[in-house]
C-alpha cells in the first residue's frame, strides 16, 4: 500500500489552534467533508468518536491515528493535522499528542485497513519523518515529509 495515494495536500493542516480532544475531531471531520462533500460530517465525527471511545488511538510519542469506518465511502482517505500545542489524548504513554494522522475507511475493507495502518506506521516510526512533520511551518512541508 502506497500511503501517498490516501494523502492529499487539501486534507492536511499545519499547526491548528486547538486545545481539546473533542475539537481536534471536529477539525478533522470538517477538513474531510470540505474535500469530499458527499460525506456527512456528523457521520464522520460520530464514527471517529465511536472508535475513540473503544480506546484511545494515541499510540505514543505524541502521535495519534484516529480512524473510522464510513458507509458508502469508495476509497480510503487520510486527514493529517498537527496542532500548535500538544493535546491531552489519553495516549498509551500518557503523553499529549500533536500529530494526528486520521484515516476514513470504507466498510468491509479489512485487508486494506491493515495495509494502510502498516504503511502509516512505517512512516511514523521514522524519527526523521516525525521530526520534519513537527518542525513543518506549512502543510506542504508535512506532505513532503511523508512522501
Amino acid at each position, binding site marked *: 500500500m502506497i500511503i501517498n495515494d490516501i494523502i492529499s495536500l487539501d486534507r492536511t493542516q499545519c499547526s491548528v489552534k486547538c486545545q481539546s480532544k473533542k475539537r481536534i475531531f471536529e477539525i478533522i471531520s470538517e477538513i474531510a467533508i470540505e474535500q469530499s462533500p458527499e460525506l456527512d460530517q456528523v457521520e464522520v465525527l460520530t464514527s471517529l468518536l465511536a*472508535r475513540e471511545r*473503544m*480506546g*484511545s*488511538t494515541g*499510540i*505514543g510519542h505524541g*502521535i495519534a*491515528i484516529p*480512524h473510522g469506518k464510513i458507509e458508502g465511502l469508495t476509497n480510503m482517505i487520510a486527514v493529517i493535522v498537527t496542532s500548535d500545542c500538544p493535546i491531552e489524548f489519553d495516549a*498509551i504513554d500518557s503523553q499529549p499528542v500533536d500529530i494526528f494522522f486520521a484515516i476514513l475507511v470504507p466498510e468491509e475493507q*479489512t*485487508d486494506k*485497513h*491493515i*495495509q494502510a*495502518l*502498516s504503511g*502509516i*506506521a*512505517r512512516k*511514523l*516510526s521514522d524519527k526523521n519523518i516525525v521530526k520534519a512533520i513537527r518542525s513543518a511551518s506549512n502543510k506542504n512541508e508535512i506532505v513532503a515529509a511523508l512522501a
Partner: protein
Amino acid sequence: MLVSKTVTIINKLGLHARAATKLVQLSNSFDCDIQLKQGEQSAPANSVLALLMLESSQGKQVEISCNGNDAQTALDSIEELIANRFDEGE
C-alpha cells in the same frame, strides 16, 4: 528464561490499532523483553507502531518470544489475548 511459541492471528481484523494497543498494554505489565516475529520481520511488543508494521492480518502466524523473569506468564497471557480475539466481539 527465554520461551517462545508460534500462534495464529484468528480475529477478523488482525493486529489492527486497537488490538496492537491491547497487546502493548499487556506486554508492559510484565518484567521481560517480548518480541513478535512474523516471517523475517520482528517487532518489540511494547511499540504499537512496530506491531502495526508487521501487517498481521487474520490467518497470519506470529512467533511470540519472551525473555525475562516472568517470561512464561507473559507468553501464556499474550497467547490467551490472541486466542480470545483481543476480546473483540465479532
